[in-house]
């Protein structure tokens, strides 16, 4: 599953509670759309840390990193490369020219 799709799925299922998300674009701000509050941010942080196995630092908890699906995907990809990808082993994370993807049946999203 493409990382961005997985993140989008988490946002719609857990932060938007499955409400219709017509017109919800990957660049849309969670703040501007009223999707996220302090509890939702904590839920998002818990998901990122558990799912992608890295610890978010306080200085990383800002809208530049977490305020849209695209920002999230870029941020997670930047943190995954050294932390999680190495644990998974070669070939499990595909860092191609397109969006970051997972591969292999033990990787996230499979």
């Amino acid at each position, binding site marked *: 599953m493409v990382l961005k799709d997985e993140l989008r799925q988490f946002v719609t299922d857990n932060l938007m509670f499955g409400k219709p998300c017509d017109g919800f674009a990957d660049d849309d701000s969670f703040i501007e759309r009223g999707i996220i509050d302090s509890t939702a941010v904590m839920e998002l*942080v818990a998901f990122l840390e558990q799912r992608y196995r890295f610890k978010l630092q*306080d200085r990383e*908890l*800002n809208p530049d990193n977490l305020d849209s699906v695209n920002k999230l995907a870029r941020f997670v990809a930047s943190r995954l490369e050294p932390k999680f990808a190495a644990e998974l082993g070669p070939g499990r994370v595909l860092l191609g020219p397109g969006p970051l993807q997972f591969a292999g049946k033990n990787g996230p999203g499979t």
Partner: protein
Amino acid sequence: MNTTTTAFSADVLNIDAAAVSAVIETEIRDIVLQRLNRKGVIVAISGGIDSSVVAALCIKALGSTRVLGLILPEADSSPDSLYFANLLAQSLGLRTHLEDIAGILTAAGCYQRRDEAIRKVIPEYKDGYKCKIVLPDQVNGSAYPIFSVVVESPTGERTKTRLTLDSYLGVVAATSFKQRTRKMMEYYYADLLNYAVAGTANRLEYDQGFFVKNGDGAADLKPIAHLYKTQVYQLAESLGIPEEIQKRPPTTDTYPLDQSQEEFYFPLPYDKMDLCLYARNRDVQPEEVAPVIGLTPEQVARAYHIIDSTRRATRYLHRPAVLCEDVPEVPHDAGT
């Protein structure tokens, strides 16, 4: 939203305190005796400015024989609160009952559950330690409002750690026993005396959802919910609330460590927060507000954003139970 027609200044919140007080007193009489059909009012007094003003207004409206003040300390309450509550009662001639709710809270597991939630992020936290939860600086930084817990060891060593979701929810859920237990006790006395319960929220707290649902947010009337805290202080002076209480810094008095309202909830001190809320409600541009309150336009814009998002996030706290189908015979405002 209203549109401002005059230049914005710090004076916009100035009121004719005596006139405002008279209006509220008339309303209290009408609400309690006519619309709610109750003989008097219960006011939980914390020794803070809001409950002091509500108690004074109720006494002026109904007379001291129809007002009962409840003093409801628990294990983490500051001794100052008891002192100031007694000072107020003496000053107003207010009848009071003191109910220490620590036993109820202990039986409910309030302290134990809170401490267990803290130990999820600070395992060494144990008896003898003190704690509070705090927010980051939201006006000067771009950080999300994620709480941290500050703990102090018996030797005075402090540790600050960001709360995880489950630890945060655990701390808040356990701590809310305090406000809900107080409200339970208020309604016990209200039932006993056929009184109504007066809430003590000011406008800032009411608008921004700074209360526990079915805890301090529950009441039969809220006499000062339309007044900015700055205006509550003006009423306090007009009503002759003891100067010591007027000068006491606002505190949550909920956690063992001293905790300001800015650390816990509001991004600015109440006087600046009041002005930002007033200005936001009237679409005053941040550039006009900034020099008045000593902030940059960017900081005011950030405060506006926090006001909007907090208002949105706490809207459900104001909602009564939502019915799946309307019951037209029982309107929401039944009895009024």
